[in-house]
């Protein structure tokens, strides 16, 4: 399996929400729904403070509990990669995947099927970065193949302290945050 990863530098992220808007327009996500979002986490006491901004989305887990939970095989891996997609024609909207996702990354479309971040596989196929990554004005977001040790994402993870969210689930999430 080819592992695509997103690596986001929280030291440079300004929490501007451009990734959210870029995703919505690129993917024509309806009003009221979002496939990605920005979390602001402030720790400490005035004046000794630390604020971390995180652009969050589906983690395209190497061990995706959503995929295991789907009773109709609507959730699937795209072309032997870790990119997890949903086939609306097979999705019954039962919500099992929503319950199984540790990240609350899945949403129900008005039509009744489940949707989520696709890592913009339609762009990846053309050699482009996902819309959020390629629009980010601070260039704090990176995308690439982890199996390639020379990719930017591999190099960043090799050289910088980082974390992934809810690692303890064993899902092997593939969105990393440089800290």
């Amino acid at each position, binding site marked *: 399996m080819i592992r695509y990863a997103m690596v986001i530098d929280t*030291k*440079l992220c*300004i*929490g*501007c*929400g*451009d990734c*959210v*808007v*870029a995703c*919505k*327009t*690129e*993917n*024509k996500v309806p*009003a*009221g729904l979002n496939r990605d979002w920005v979390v602001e986490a*402030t720790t*400490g*006491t*005035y*004046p000794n*403070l*630390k*604020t971390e*901004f995180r652009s969050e989305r589906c983690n395209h887990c190497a061990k995706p509990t959503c995929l295991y939970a789907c009773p109709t095989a609507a959730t699937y891996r795209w072309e032997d990669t870790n990119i997890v997609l949903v*086939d*609306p*024609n097979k999705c019954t909207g039962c919500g099992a995947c929503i319950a199984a996702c540790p990240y609350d990354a899945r949403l129900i479309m*008005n*039509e*009744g*099927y489940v949707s989520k971040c696709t890592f913009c596989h*339609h762009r990846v196929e053309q050699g482009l970065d996902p*819309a959020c990554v*390629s*629009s*980010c*004005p*601070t*260039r*704090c977001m990176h995308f690439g193949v982890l199996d390639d040790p020379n990719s930017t994402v591999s190099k960043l993870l090799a050289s910088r302290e980082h974390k992934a969210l809810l690692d303890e689930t064993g899902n092997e999430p593939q969105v990393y945050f440089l800290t």
Partner: protein
Amino acid sequence: MKRREFIQLSATLSAGAMAPVALTGCAERPLPGTGEVVRTPTVCNVCFWRCAGTVSTENGRPWKIEGNPDDLHSTGRFCTRGDGGLGMYTDPDRLKQPMIRVTENGQQRFRPATWDEAFDYIAAKMNRIKDEHGEDRLCLFSHGPGGSYFRRMLTAFGSRGYTQPSFAQCRGPRDVGFALTFGEGVGSPDRTDMENSRCIVLIGSHLGENLHNSQVQTWISALRKGATLITVDPRFSVAAGKSKHWLPIKPGTDMALLLAWMHVLINEGLYDADYVDRYVNGLDKLTAHVQQFTPEWAFTQTGIRPEVIRETAREMAKAAPATVVHPGRHVTWYGDDTQRSRAIAILTALLGSWGREGGYLAMENVNLPRYPLPDPPAPKNNWMQAVQGEYPLAPAGIAQKVIDGSIGDDAFFKGWFVYGTNLGYTIPGVTEKLQQAAQSLDLFVVVDTMPYAITGYADVILPECTYLERLDPIRNSPEREPSLAVNFPAFEPKYDSKPGWWIAKHIAERLGLGDWFPWKDYGEELDWQLRQVGSSLDEMRRIGVKKFPRTTPKYFAPNENRQFNTGSGKIELHSDLLADYGHDPLPVYTPPPTRPDEKHLHLNYGRAAAHTFGRTINNPTLFELMPENTAWVHPVAAGDFGVSNGEYVRLKNQDGVESLPVRIRVTQRIRPDSVYLVHGFGHKESQLGLANGRGADDQGLITRILVDPIMGGTGMRGNFVTLIPEEASA
């Protein structure tokens, strides 16, 4: 009956029916970009930075906007607002047709009109003003590139009156302060060379929340390379969170800190002696002046510990000349703002960073000829002398003085064009004066895309189409490398809206001034201009952005001798010009207004990445991202007022003005003596379906205005608010 009663547009027009949501059933949506995609070059107009990019439609429907990689304003990456620009086009609350104020049965209302009726009305009123008072009695309030056509039309008519609230309500003090010191200003985009800086100092400037694209990009690029960031802000801003040193200064005491930094640089011999010897005048006087401003003294004013003041001054000097003490942008704070900008300029000179890599560079634009036009009529009167004569050092129109100069029977100005600026939410404490001016003026025209509050005063409302539906003037703003960019319409104008150039041309033709717009389509003028520099409209339609080589150096050459455009020809630490006009030749410290009591908190305000002032709150995409502002308060203050996170309160200022209900955000990220609001919310116009009633308007709470005696700026940060919890039933 009032001459002009304030009319809410919704009282006239029934809201347009919402387009039904198209349901596609359970069929899979096609992947984006698999249909017929058409791309059109655009120059963003969601803010004034004007990044160049591309609008994509798919199967004839709006799809997305992306940056143009050849554009240094954006380097191919638009910001949050730029990416959300399609919402400006799709907003169902847009102005849809011309409207004229009428009185029927003793009631004033707007009636829909044809463009011809609107033009006839305006031309007749302008000619009457000319006959009764003179042709120079009209004024343009403007924000945005499209104001230029109306300025052209009014200049041709004989009226030169022109003001942008971006001067006296925003960046004017720094323009004047830097010009007094270096003989030239900071310009826009700001000429900070942050991508090469090793130390960046932000004084209340909240880069990142203030999302001027290339400025944020160059700032972040410096941080990526390990630059030291020093942020002075009462709030733990986004920038403060990325800083090596955050100085949570007591609001309003920045000048004390700046003077103490000068004290340290001079007394520890940390300034750039070669640079000062070569280029600078007045070090002796400055040295004597700053002896009193020790870090220990500054601590008593600012709350910043003396050792932190010394350490940060040394950090600046260590990185110099690659140190930017950032000039800020909205700097009308306490009325001594030109002097504070002077202090920043003086620090910059001591660090030797003006004209040096990593400090301030010389930006360059393209030498683009203007389209040949007739000679304008000579001005009959000096309108600046007439309405703002007490500010001879102000190089531009002072918006609130122009308003004052429009009130009363003997007022200078008799007619207004207001282009793209919602004056009541832009200029503090001006609501009553707008009402008075509306009683005095003989003509009041508003040109806008949206039914903002200002339309309520108009005689005629002219609906301009958005930037996505029109040609705009060629973007030729100064940058690190010169370039031109052209904004092409991606869509036909919606409703009965029209491009600004078309509107101004038709008014001019009604006035017999058609030779000022001697073409059928504005594209002819742009094509002529582009051909003078070896391009064409056709080429620009293909490429969007055209780069040109620099013809001047970015930085001073080593050991170069230079003349500065000041009285002495040198960089002036001590300003004789200011002394001649009765102002302090060196910056002095004035303590800010103090809190009336423990129950009043400093009112501070700023911007958010999601919005441009109040102009985008109703944009459906950006509204969704940030539908209302919150009032930030420290947990201690929240405890004092007995309010908790998420609760609605009203803010009441020292003069008894109350805001709309606003949600409390309890956070450690602010001093316990301050409240912070994002500017632009609190619209009270029902015709703004999304924005109406959302959040609090900071501008309405700013009733104590601290006027800058040098350039007439309206200092807005001397106000205090108390929190009034909303009743549970409200």
